[in-house]
C-alpha cells in the first residue's frame, strides 16, 4: 500500500489511543482525589500526570509559571490547543488522518470519527469544569470504544488494518509503561515493600486507569502487592492492556505486513522488544530495577517506531529496485 496511507492509518490509531489514555488518567485521578485521606498538596496530586505525558516544560511555558493547579492541569491536558499532547490536539490529528484514509476505512468508521470530533470540538469551545469532567471523559472513552468496535466489525483485514493495530498497541504499551513508571515512583519509594500489601486505593486507582482492577482481583487474592501488580500489567498474556499482550499483537501485525528487506530494521526492533518480555518474572524485573526496566522498554518502543518509519513509511528512500507487489 501507499506509504502515506500506511503512515496515516498508524497515526490515526496512535492518536486515538492517546485520546483514550488521556481521558482514563485524568478521570481516575479526579475520582481518586475525591476521597483521598492523605492530605497531599494540589501540586503533588497533579504533577505526576504531567510527568506521564512529559509535559512539564510545555505546561510551564504556556502558563508563564510552573504553578500546578487542578483546573489548570485539566484544561491543559484536555483542551489546550497549544499543547500537542492534549486530548483535543490528539483527536484532531486522529480525525485529519481519518480523512486522508477515508477510502480505506469503512463508512461507519469515518462517520463515527467525524461525529466524535465535531462533538468534542463543540463541547470544548468552553472551559471544561472539573465537576463536569468525569461525564465528558466517560463520553470520550465510549466513543473510542465505539470506533474500535466498528473497526473490528467492519474493516478489511488487509495491510491498512495491520498498521492500525501497530499504532493502537504501540501507543498503548508506551502509555502503560509510562503510567506504571511514574505511579510506581510516587507510590513505592521503598523497594523492600514489594511483597507486602500496599495502599488499596492508590494502587487500585492505578489498576482502574488501566481497566485492570476487576481482572486483577480475580487472579490475585493476597491484597494489592506491587509484585503482583507489576506481573499483571507487564507480563499477563491475556490482559489486553499488558505490555506482553501489546507486543504480541504488534508482532502479528508485522508478520502480516511482511517485508522484502534483507537488512530488516523492523525485524531487529521486534526481536529486541520481545526480549524485554521473554524469560522475565516480576521478581527479576524488580532485581534489575523497575524504573530502569521501563526506561529500557520505552527506548525499545522508540526504536521500533523509528524502524517503522524507515522500513515502511520511507521505504522508497532505500529502494533501488522495484518490488512485485
Amino acid at each position, binding site marked *: *500500500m*501507499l*506509504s*502515506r496511507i*500506511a503512515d496515516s492509518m498508524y497515526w490515526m490509531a496512535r492518536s486515538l489511543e492517546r485520546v483514550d489514555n488521556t481521558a482514563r488518567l485524568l478521570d481516575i485521578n479526579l475520582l481518586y482525589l475525591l476521597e483521598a485521606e492523605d492530605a497531599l498538596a494540589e501540586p503533588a496530586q497533579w504533577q505526576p500526570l504531567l510527568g506521564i505525558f512529559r509535559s512539564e516544560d510545555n505546561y510551564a511555558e504556556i502558563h508563564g509559571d510552573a504553578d500546578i493547579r487542578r483546573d489548570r492541569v485539566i484544561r491543559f491536558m484536555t483542551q489546550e490547543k497549544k499543547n500537542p499532547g492534549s486530548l483535543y490536539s490528539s483527536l484532531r490529528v486522529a480525525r485529519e488522518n481519518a*480523512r*486522508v484514509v*477515508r*477510502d480505506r476505512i469503512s*463508512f461507519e468508521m*469515518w462517520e463515527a470519527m467525524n461525529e466524535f470530533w465535531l462533538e468534542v470540538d463543540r463541547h470544548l469551545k468552553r472551559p471544561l469544569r472539573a465537576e463536569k469532567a468525569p461525564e465528558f471523559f466517560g463520553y470520550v472513552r465510549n466513543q473510542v470504544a465505539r470506533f474500535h468496535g466498528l473497526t473490528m466489525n467492519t474493516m478489511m483485514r488487509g*495491510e491498512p488494518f495491520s*498498521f492500525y493495530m501497530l499504532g493502537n498497541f504501540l501507543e498503548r504499551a508506551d502509555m502503560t509503561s509510562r503510567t506504571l513508571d511514574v505511579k510506581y515512583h510516587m507510590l513505592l519509594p521503598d523497594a523492600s515493600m514489594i511483597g507486602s500489601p500496599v495502599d488499596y486505593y492508590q494502587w487500585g486507582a492505578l489498576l482502574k486507569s488501566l481497566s485492570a482492577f476487576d481482572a486483577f482481583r480475580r487472579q490475585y487474592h493476597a491484597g494489592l502487592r506491587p509484585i503482583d501488580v507489576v506481573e499483571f500489567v507487564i507480563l499477563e498474556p491475556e490482559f489486553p492492556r499488558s505490555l506482553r499482550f501489546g507486543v504480541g499483537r504488534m508482532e502479528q501485525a508485522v508478520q502480516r*505486513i*511482511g*517485508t*522484502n528487506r534483507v537488512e530488516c530494521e523492523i525485524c531487529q526492533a521486534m526481536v529486541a522488544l520481545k526480549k524485554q518480555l521473554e524469560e522475565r518474572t516480576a521478581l527479576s524485573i524488580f532485581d534489575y530495577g523497575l524504573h530502569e526496566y521501563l526506561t529500557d522498554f520505552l527506548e525499545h518502543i522508540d526504536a521500533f517506531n523509528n524502524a517503522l518509519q524507515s522500513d*515502511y*513509511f520511507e*521505504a*522508497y528512500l*532505500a*529502494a533501488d*529496485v*522495484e*518490488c512485485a*507487489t
Partner: protein
Amino acid sequence: MLQTSSNSAAQSAMPYHEFYRDNFEPRNHYRPMWEHIRRTGQNELAEKAHEAHLAMHTDGVTFTVYGDHEEGIERVWPFDLIPRVIPASEWSQLEAGLKQRVRALNMFLKDIYHGQRVIKDGVVPAELVYEGKDFRREIRDIDPPHDIYTHISGVDLIRNVDGRYLVLEDNLRTPSGVSYMIENRIVERRILPEFFAQYRVRRVEHYPALLLQALRHLSPRGKDQAEIVVLTPGIYNSAYFEHTFLAKEMGVELAEGRDMVTKNNVVYLKTTHGLRRVDVIYRRIDDDFLDPLCFRSESVLGVAGIINAWRAGNVAIVNAPGAGIADDKAVYAYVPDIIRYYLGENSILQNVPTYQMSNAEDRAFVLDNMEKMVVKAVAESGGYGMLMGPSSSPSQRAEFARHITRDPRNYIAQPVIPLSRHVCYLDGELESRHLDLRPFIIYGEDIEVVPGGLTRVALTKGSLVVNSSQGGGSKDTWVLAE
C-alpha cells in the same frame, strides 16, 4: 474573426423551455412524468426532496467551496428531483456532434504539437496558438500513446431560444462532474423509482468501467500490467470527493504528487514495500502544477520529472499535457473551421457566436455593448474570471474594459444566450430555472459518449450561472432508449 452576430430579436425572445410548449402543455416526452407529478401531490414531493437531500448527505456527496476559510467549506451536493429527459433522436444528433468535435480537436492537438499544418494553411492564426496560456512548447514532437490527447472531455452544451444545442465550452483539461452524474442517478432511482417505470432510461453507471478500459489501453507495459493512479491535489480540493469516487469505482490507487517519485524516467509509487512502477496517471491537477522541473517550479502538487518520463514513453498522462490549448476560449471560435479542415465535414454542433478581443473591430463593438455581453478570460473555467454584462455594475464593466484593453488576447466576448429552462421543485413549488448540459466523452480504443451527462441548474431565479461554486444545482439526466 467576427462570426454572425446574434440578432436582437432573438435576445429578447423567451428562452426555450425544455418541459413545456408555448401553450404550457408539457412536451410529449414529459407527459407521463407530468401526470405522475400531478397525482403525487405536494406533500409527497416535499418528502421526496427531503429524502434526496438526506441521501446525498449521508453518502457524503459533497463539493468544496473556496471562500474565506483556508480549507474551504464542504457542502452537500444540491440536487433537484425532477429529471431532465432527452429523447433518443435528439441524443443521437448530440452524440454524433460530440464525437466529431473530440476527434477533430485531437487531430488539431497532434498537428499543433508537430507539423502545424493548420497554422501554415492559414486556418488558425499562429499568434492565437502561440499566445495561448495553455500552449506548451515543452511538449512539441512528443507522441502520446495512440496519438490521444483528450481522453476525457466534458463539453458544455446550452440551447438557444429555438431549442438548438450550442457548444458553450469544450472542457478538455480536467473536466469534473461525472461522479455527480452517477450519484444523481443513484439517488433519483432510490427516491423516485416510480418515475423510471414509465420510461426506458439509458444507463450511465458504467462510466468508471469505460474509463478504466480507456486508461488500461494506454499502459506502456500493456493493459494487463497497467498500474493506474488518480492523481489528486489533496483533500482540500473542490473536487476531492470526485477523485475519491473515481479511484474507488475503478479500484485504483488515489495518490498525491508526494506519493510518487521518478527514477531514470520511470514513475514510481512510494509504497510500504518499496517502489512500484506506475503506467498511467489520470491527473486531476492542471498542467502548471504537474511537474516542477518543467512547468511551475514552486509547485508541490506534482511530481518532479514526470514530463520526461512521459516524453520517454514510460508513463501515460491523462489528459495529455498541453491539451488545454484546444479548449482555449479564443481557439474555440475556430472549432468549426478545425472540423472542416481535418474531417472535411460541417460541424454538427454549432458554436455560440464569439468576438475575439484581439480583433480591433470586434473589440470596439464589444466595448460599446458590454452590458449585452458575456466577457470571459480565455483560460479560466468554473465561472471564474467572467463578466455577465446584463447583471454587472458600471464599475465591473469598467474593470473588464481595462483588462480587455491591456491584454486583448486573454479575453473573448459572447452575446448573452438565454439558457433553456426546466421545471424544478424548489421550496414546495414547481418553478422554472435555467440549465445547461455537460456530457462526458471518453476517447479510448474508440470514442464513446456516455448517454447522459451532468445537468447543472442555476437555482437563483433568473440567473444564468450554473456553476456549483456559485449557487448552481443539478438534475438527473435521462437519455431515452429508442
